[in-house]
């Protein structure tokens, strides 16, 4: 039983790691640009397909591929900002529809390029850290956990310690006021979009060897990410991380001890409960709604 609980904890830690990466990116984009990026799950998918394209061939080392995935999806984010979200800045519903259109395009392109069936990603390493017979942490999962901590830590430092970070936080709090302070809205939007997309991409690239990579894999991730950012409060990065960890633990535990469908119902119900008690999420403020 102790083994079972310990293993469940390790499982949850991994789920929390990649979920926070996706959710923080989504929060950042929403916070700075006010746009609900429905295509965020597809950016995650795109990161995984970068690994399929470059790593399955075997020439490029895995960590380099992950870095390429991060940069490539970040650039796709810039492209989205430039072609869609900037012209639609004062039209959040238009931005929402554009991101839905973009999602369809990404799914269709990947289906055409790689087929509708799942794609293959060879394992990066098969090493396992065995605490006991039944408590085991695969190194691949450890890498995802480690990368999430490092990347989110770096993001935190960036936001708190640099001028860009300060500008970003200011815009996330109040875009007009930030503009009056001389902060370039275009620049902060670009930075937010790059970082947000890159985080989704790197999450996809890191988890690609561990999950099924297919053109529609983004869907399940975005649903969980939405739940997480709502519970955390949409303006709050810390809230997103805390909510991701809480959601991952609750979901994993319910799946292990009851079943997966009930876990989904519990997750959604808890989210509604949080909203009923505190309609702006645990760490959100009313202004950002």
């Amino acid at each position: 039983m102790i083994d079972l609980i310990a293993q469940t904890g390790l499982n949850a830690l991994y789920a929390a790691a990649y979920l926070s990466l996706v959710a923080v990116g989504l929060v950042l984009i929403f916070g700075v640009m006010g746009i609900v990026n429905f295509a965020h799950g597809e950016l995650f998918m795109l990161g995984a397909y970068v690994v399929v394209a470059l790593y399955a061939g075997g020439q490029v080392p895995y960590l380099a591929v992950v870095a390429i995935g991060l940069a490539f999806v970040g650039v796709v984010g810039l492209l989205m900002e430039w072609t869609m979200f900037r012209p639609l800045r004062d039209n959040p519903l238009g931005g929402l529809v554009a991101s839905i259109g973009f999602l369809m395009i990404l799914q269709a392109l990947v289906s055409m390029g790689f087929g509708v069936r799942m794609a293959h990603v060879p394992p990066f390493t098969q090493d396992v850290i065995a605490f006991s017979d039944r408590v085991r942490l695969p190194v691949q999962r450890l890498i995802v956990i480690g990368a999430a901590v490092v990347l989110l830590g770096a993001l935190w430092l960036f936001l708190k310690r640099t001028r860009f970070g300060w500008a970003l936080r200011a815009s996330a709090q109040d875009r007009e006021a930030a503009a009056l302070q001389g902060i370039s809205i275009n620049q902060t939007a670009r930075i937010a979009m790059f970082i947000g997309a890159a985080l989704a991409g790197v999450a996809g690239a890191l988890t690609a060897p561990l999950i099924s990579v297919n053109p529609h894999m983004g869907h399940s991730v975005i649903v969980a990410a939405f739940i997480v950012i709502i519970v955390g409060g949409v303006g709050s990065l810390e809230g997103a991380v805390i909510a991701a960890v809480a959601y991952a633990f609750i979901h994993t535990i319910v799946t292990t001890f009851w079943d997966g469908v009930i876990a989904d119902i519990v997750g959604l119900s808890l989210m509604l409960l949080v909203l009923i008690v505190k309609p702006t999420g645990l760490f959100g403020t009313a202004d950002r709604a």
Partner: protein
Amino acid sequence: MFVNFFRSGLSRRRFLSSAATLSGIGVLGATLPRKVFAQDQVVRVGFLAPLTGPVAAWGKPGLDGCMIWAEWINEAGGIDIGGEKHRVEFIPYDDEYDPAKARAGATKLIREDGVKFIMMLGGDPWPGVQPVAERTGMLFSTLLPSDLSPDTTTLIAPAEVHPIYNVTGVEWLAETRPDLKTAVICAQDDALGLPSVATYLAAFEAAGIEMLEAPILFDPATTDFAPVVTRMLARNPQIVCLDTCYADYVHPICEQLFQQGYEGQILSCTADFYEQIIEKTSKEFMEGFVFQFPDFDDPELNADFINFQEPNRFYEEYAQRFPGQWGAVSWEYASIMDLWKAAVEKAGSAEPDAVLAAMTEGGTAPHAFGEARWWGRDLFGIDNALVGNWPVIAIEDGKARIKAFRSIPDWYDKHGELLKKHMAAYNQLWDQRS
């Protein structure tokens, strides 16, 4: 003229031919690039399945396989209908796995394109098509026999009788490895997972294998399988059964079983792309993995009783054109076409009722894996499912090998009551559905 159009005045055959004529006149807006005049030379078959969206993996690869099939048949002169050679042409319609779109699609294929036969994946879209099938008498095929019911006599399940053939794997395993006595099972909570669970439960009970706990169901949108695997391994089973999990689940589950230190037997319905699973785990781990879908380059498929045309060449051609896309559905639709072609040539006509009569004559028909009989009254209320032998496949030294062909009817004659009991418990009998 539209008044009473669907009333009994018209016979089915007249209905179909008048429909074809109408489409020939070119009803306003009908998009018909192909000329109807060519109809005496061409016979059309509809392919009504998801080609885009999340379920496309169950339709698109089948259409690809059919294209190869049609090329080969047409190169060889086409289909002989009453002494005249006809080219085969597939008309695809993407139903997006939606009953409303499937209904519009069936109407278009039948009344505007004049197809003589429609292949479907089945499942959710079928109820939308069912009234169209009943009114027009069009011949339909499905991959999911759970669509069968006595209401629709022109729907057949001629390729796979999912999930009944899974009993062959359990039976073979129990004979080969009598030391394995305990099992756990996990399945996605959907229309494929549940009847399969019932089948495995019956097969395990028949083989005297004990279930350590109730089947673990997970949502089809699950991506991380670590919790499911942790849960299964907590009971220390000798057999882990993956039910009819899709490749998208089988791979990560196997990977997790491997990483979490499982070393026992694995049993599954499918193992598409198993060489990738081996790469993610190890050859030793996957050795002896039992499942139900052969590679078509297997030399066993060259046996005389196999009715699939040139399986080895088909596999090669497919792998070359669509690398990495081979799976169960790649050959199943094409094998239905083999059966249909044989019936058309036997009947000397492509009309649905004549073909169906020729196909079911004598209660048997040539299935891909050998002569099989029309069966299913107990479970589906109608004998429109084609069952016979089914192969049991095991992975040996990194390659899938057919270990045996087992008779499904023989198993059912012995253990039919068990299957009915478990199917009833999961509401899967035809009179329990809806």
